[in-house]
């Protein structure tokens, strides 16, 4: 694939989004440690921000995205409102899904985030259906689906990749290889070190990329999006990154070598981009600090909005199952 680079304005925009995701999730870490502030499992994309931002920046607004349980970065990158996401994560009535999805299943159709599924491997078949609709209608839109190295072991992913290639569907499979699936390291659940090698088996182009380098992710994503948009069929990207916070905030990573965590901490994608922006003279430290403060204020505003919002009424749980029926039977 080619190698057109991201421009200065784009780099700063990507930095801002990565900081937003990082600060948003840092806030979730803090809130999850306060008793009763957050419901459910907090499954974070902390450390994987470059994959979400580099990939989504290569999309058009009307391209469709399918996400998974580690979704906050994808959704923020796609343009979802942090206030509505934070309220949803707290189960509030003002949440993006009225408190019905919580932190794990958020759908934001207004930014073409069709769905988020917690069923590992559930995304690719649905993404294939969305891409089919795009092809059927003769649009030039594409669908991107994010899934992990763990999901790559699911049979549904195989079926989806085979069908997508057979029908030349405009779907981009993005496998975020974060080195861990539950408490299994990659070598414990997969014989390959490069999952991308599977792409050839389906007859689609595939490439691995440093998932902690947002510019490299963006460059590859732009080429792959262009491939999918051209009608040549699907493509497969393996973004090699790291799951910095364990499976979720309830996972204290007792099975992970501390040295491995330290190594990957040094490869922090947010700091990496920031350093390059400063080194290349695209912005000064002071300018970036102002930007950081702006982002922090937006996150604080989201937390304030979510905290001040009411919970939905208990009986509103009966709504939203059926189209045309106000209340479930």
């Amino acid at each position: 694939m080619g190698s057109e680079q991201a421009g200065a304005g784009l780099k700063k925009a990507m930095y801002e989004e990565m900081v937003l995701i990082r600060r948003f999730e840092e806030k979730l870490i803090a809130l999850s440690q306060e008793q009763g502030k957050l419901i459910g499992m907090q499954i974070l994309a902390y450390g994987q921000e470059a994959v979400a931002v580099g990939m989504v920046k290569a999309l058009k607004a009307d391209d469709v995205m399918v996400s998974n349980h580690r979704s906050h970065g994808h959704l923020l990158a796609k343009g979802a409102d942090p206030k509505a996401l934070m309220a949803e994560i707290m189960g509030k009535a003002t949440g993006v899904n009225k408190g019905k999805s919580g932190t794990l299943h958020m759908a934001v159709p207004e930014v073409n985030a069709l769905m988020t599924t917690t069923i590992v491997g559930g995304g690719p078949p649905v993404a294939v259906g969305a891409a089919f609709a795009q092809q059927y209608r003769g649009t030039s839109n594409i669908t991107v689906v994010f899934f992990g190295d763990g999901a790559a072991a699911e049979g549904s992913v195989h079926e989806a990749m085979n069908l997508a290639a057979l029908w030349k569907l405009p779907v981009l499979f993005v496998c975020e290889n974060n080195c861990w699936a539950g408490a299994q390291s990659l070598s414990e659940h997969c014989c390959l070190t490069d999952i991308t090698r599977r792409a050839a088996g389906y007859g689609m182009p595939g490439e691995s990329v440093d998932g902690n380098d947002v510019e490299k992710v963006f460059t590859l994503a732009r080429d792959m999006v262009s491939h999918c948009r051209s009608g040549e069929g699907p493509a497969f990207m393996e973004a090699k990154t790291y799951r910095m916070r364990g499976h979720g905030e309830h996972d204290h990573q007792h099975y992970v070598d501390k040295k491995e965590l330290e190594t990957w901490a040094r490869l922090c994608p947010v700091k990496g981009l920031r350093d390059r922006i400063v080194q290349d003279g695209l912005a000064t430290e002071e300018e970036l600090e102002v930007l950081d403060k702006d982002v922090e204020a937006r996150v604080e505003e989201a937390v304030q909005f979510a905290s001040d919002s009411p919970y939905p009424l208990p009986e509103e749980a009966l709504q939203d199952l059926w189209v045309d029926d106000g209340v479930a039977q």
Partner: protein
Amino acid sequence: MAVLSFGQAVKDALDLAMSMDDRVFIAGEGVGVSIHFDPNLPTHGLLEKYGPRRVKDTPVSEAAIAGLGVGASGLGLRPVVEIMFFPFITLAADMLVNHAAKLRYLSGGKSSFPLTVRLKAGMGFGAGCQHSHNLEAWMAHSPGLKVLFPSTPADAKGLLLSAIFDPNPVMVIEEMLLYWIKGEVPDGDHRVPLGKARVVAPGSDCTVVSYGGAVYTALEAAKTLSKEGISTEVIDLRSLVPLDKACLLDSVTRTGRLVVLHDATKFGGFGAEISAIVAEEAFDLLKAPIRRVAAPDIPVPVSPPQERFYKPSPEAVAAAVRSTLQKG
């Protein structure tokens, strides 16, 4: 009004839906080119008429077929996907149960997934339990899925057309041995509303509630019983979800007796739900205990005498009705 086979009636609905609305497409294993060549099969001739853009033969990939329906419907198409044999639904179940049924709810009512899944069901062809296994109770137990089970050619057409244009996910179960039975089918855009049962034969002594091919078993039993002076009311539910409780309760109010019949196994079957509703809401009207007639709790056997033994018989239904009429 034309006389069509059940299979032709299904095809009539598919054909009409596709001709009326470009959002409708069909997909599945052998929906275009099938190993079978029979004009009574529901997708026969559609590939020739609509071409490969709208009639999609898929690989043997049930999860992908169901996912295709979920994703395409999420973007506003009206997919009609086929699962070749009902038990294969296990391979598609995640897409249907965790996705089709739940995604609208999870979205807080923002999204909708108007897909139709045609499930080819039934027994009596010696194929064994991995091809014959009626799992409608599973489907009905997943909030968010509508479940239809027609018994006549007219309903096969009318329910399928309603399903395709319903804004929710709908499972339509087609009993394959019915494909060759014939009946009068209204022309044109004939729709049967979902959630409306049909009184097939009126009666006053006992209500027999059923659906799908078992309705014919009930009718045969009713014929036998009428010779004995017993008047049986036969109800065809047609739609399990939503369920026409009013029709059911109205009938039991008049007869005071209920027999529930289905070809699926008894324990945890859909008949248990029917029985529970009547026991809960009309107990004081009942003159006798409710009886269920259903398959024994075993996989569908293959040996012909055993497969016949498995399927509830008209004699078993008649005996159950008689038992509700015994005094003391």
